[in-house]
Every structure is written in C-alpha cells, then in structure tokens.
C-alpha cells in the first residue's frame, strides 16, 4: 500500500528494495577488480570482501542496511568503496571494522565500470577472481 503511494521516479528518489541477485550482474560486479586496480592502484592478491556503498543514493545507506551489512562476517580483508564522501558512513565503518581500507569514488567513475547499482553490494574476491556477490 505504502509503496503504491510513495513509489516515485527512480531518477528523483531512489528507494531500497531487496532482490535476488542474478547472474547477469556477474560480469559487471567483476569490474570491481579492474576499477580498484586502474582507478586506485589497488590489487586484490588474497581473499577480500569488497563492499560498495551507494552513499549518494537516497536511503540506500540507512542505519538498518548498514547493520545488515555488518552482520555478515567478511573475508580476511575488507575494502569499502563509497560512491561519494560521507562522514557518517565513514565513521560507521571505522567503528565497526578493523584493518579495513576505504576508497571514495571521487570522480564518479564507478558507473563506467558497470558498478552503478541501486543497492549496496558485497563482492567476495580471491586472487582477482570474483567468488560471490550479494546485494543489500
């Protein structure tokens, strides 16, 4: 009922909906490896959970979603990519994780790598290969 009432054009406001990831995103999600290497000179040599947080999309990074992400234990290393600077999200990451690394997509380049999603994303990558992914 409420969704009918308030569902609005995605361009104007972007809501948060759960969905089952589909294989069609695998190629795009794998673009994380190339993005990190080319744009941030960062290579994933071991097993790492990469979390892409859509900081500039309405309500995607609310407290509830961040808690859901934090509830799932990451791999040995954790890398965050924020789609835009956000002090509160950065503070949450720093208070919740240890040995983490944070990158910010300052030039808004991620979409060109196919990483423009309406949801937050976790990709588990080992030795440069995508093992699995999940949207939050």
């Amino acid at each position, binding site marked *: 009922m409420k969704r009918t009432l308030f569902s609005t054009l995605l*361009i*104007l406001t972007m809501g948060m909906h759960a969905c089952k990831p589909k294989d069609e995103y695998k190629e795009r999600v794998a673009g994380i490896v190339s993005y990190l290497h080319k744009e941030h000179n960062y290579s994933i040599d071991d097993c790492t959970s990469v979390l892409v947080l859509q900081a500039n999309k309405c309500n995607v990074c609310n407290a509830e979603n961040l808690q859901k992400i934090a509830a799932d234990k990451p791999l040995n290393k954790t890398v965050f990519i924020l789609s835009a600077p956000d002090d509160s999200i950065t503070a949450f990451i720093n208070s919740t994780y240890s040995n983490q690394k944070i990158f910010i997509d300052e030039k808004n380049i991620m*979409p060109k790598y196919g990483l423009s999603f309406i949801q937050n994303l976790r990709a588990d990558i080992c030795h440069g290969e995508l093992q699995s992914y999940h949207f939050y």
Partner: protein
Amino acid sequence: MSYTRSSDTIPITAQLSFSLFQYKHPFIYFLNADSNQLIVINSEQKKMVANIQIPQSLYNNTDPGGIHSFYVHNHDSIFLQDLYGFSIIDSAGRIKYHKTINSPGLNHWPPILYNNIGGVFPMYYDATLNKLFTRQYSGEKMMNEKGFYTIKVEANMDLNDSIMRELPVEYPPLYVKNYCGEANLAFREMDDSANIYSFMASPDIVIYNRYNGHVRHLTAKSKLQNQGFKPLSLEYSEDMNRKVDHMVENPLYMKIIYDKYRSCYYRMLLNGKELKNKDGSYNTFSDKELIVSVFDKDFQLLTDVNLGSNYLWNYSFATPKGLYILKISNDTYIKQATINEKNLIFDVINFNNGHARM
C-alpha cells in the same frame, strides 16, 4: 527551423534544496523541501524577492511529511497539497482553506488517492472553472498490477461543492497489456483550454478540453526516437537494479511544456541507450540523451533537437526568452548535488519559426 542556445544563471542566495517549482513570469517559485519554504525568485532581477513559510500544521505529523505539490495562483492564493489534503495559504503563510481528501482507514487507504505521485504531476487551479486539478491513482493496487493502470489519471475538485470528479483520461493500453517497469509515470501540462497528458512508455498523448470535455488521442512521436519501447518481464518487478537498467535501455517520453509565448509545445524524450559500449564501458541513466521535439498548436511536429546528456529535464519551463532547461555542471560532485548549488545554470533554447512571437 533553426534554434539558438544561450545560458542564463539564476543566483540562489541561500542553500536551496528544491523538489518542486513553478514558473510564472517573471517569478520562479521553488519549494525548499528541507525548510518547507516557498522561495520566490525574480528571474529578471536575478534575486530572491520573497520567502514564504508554509504553516507547520500542513507538514508536521504526516507520513511522510512535507508538501507534495503546490500551485501559485496569485500571492494571496497559494494552493498546497500534502499527503492528506488541499490547503490554500496567502503570502504571509496564513491558512485560508483546508480540505481533507485522502483519509486512510484503520489499516488501508481509500480505493482512490489524490496526490502528486512521482513529483511530476503538480496540482493546477483553473480560476474560470473554479476547479482544482490533481493526479489520482489507485490506493489499493500496486504499480506492478494491471489494475493500477485502469484507474483514470486525473480528477478535479469543484471548489463550490468540494466534490472530486475524475476526468476521462486513462493510461495507454500498453500499460494494461504489459509490464513497463518504472517507466510508469504520467505527466500533465496545461495550456489555455486543455490538459495534455504524456506517458513514459508511449509516443501517444491525450488531450482533454477542460471546457467542453472532449478527449483526443494523438501521436506525438519524435523522429529521433532510436528504438521502440520494450516491456519488462514481470519477474523483475522486485529487482530494482534490472528496472533501472530497463530505464537506461529504453526510450522514455517525459514531460510536455506549453510555450504560450510561441504557441507551441515541447516534448522531452530521453532516448534509449545501450548498457554497454563497444569499448567495454557502461552507461547509466544520466548518459541518456535528451531530445526536445517542438510541435505546433495542432501537434504537428516542427523539429527535433538532440541536446545531449547534460540536462536535468524535469527543471524546465518556457519563458519569453526561450525554453529554460537546467544544466548539469561538469563538476562531478555538483552533478550529484546540483539541487544544492547556489547558482542554477540554465540553457536557454530559442526555436525560430513562423509561429514564433518574438
């Protein structure tokens, strides 16, 4: 038909986060959704000339709060629409009229709701008819259900009797036959006598004469539309990522603007865009190219112009100087937050033709 393109900058003296606007020469009214103020800017003097505070009772304790639509008839009759009703205030912020139109039951909404769904269908007051026009839609059906698209898209309320009456205008049949994903917005423009309706997935439009009730169905298709609209499988109705991709890939007809200074209409089209380019890079919604099609008073196509991909099509209006369209800054951060900038930079498109009164 040729056109010229120039630029005009409207300075904003305060941090402004606007969600709705109205142009009424020479003023631009912006609703600052953060402060619940109506900001009035004189576009010729390029300065803010008024700041109308919306009474707290109209946006407090609502879910969600805030004003969803407004229409400035004159400075003493400013129509507001919140989640539950209509109000009229004056420029001092005093409430002169209030009418509840959406009363939720204990656990459900009424079958028909009246509100500015999507933020692209603002209310309108016709002083000759003394009627208030508003978007209506189903309060019971979800947007992925066919039943949602069988409800008439607009109603009006006669201020003499406060009764809502629906208008005989429906979504095009393709919305009932297919699932169109998020390409489901209806737009409505007003000219001197008619309401003109546009739907995202269809080149067809509907024209409703407010004074004699006649309805006409026309095609107002751009010659630059690069492909047909492809419906989406209903299995993706909960997959927001797929629905966004679908919006990128497909041509989308957006708002129509009536230019009373040139007796013509502009129709916005965001052309279809491949998700992946040949060089391996990807496109997003903001990469879609904006086509402006110009139609004469009989909706005969005069010309199409491809303006490229750097425009916020929603923030556009016709002025004596031409068609204003808000331009996206080249700065990527500003691109994400243009609505918070202190200068609004518009492109001014001026079409020259035999119909123009310039």
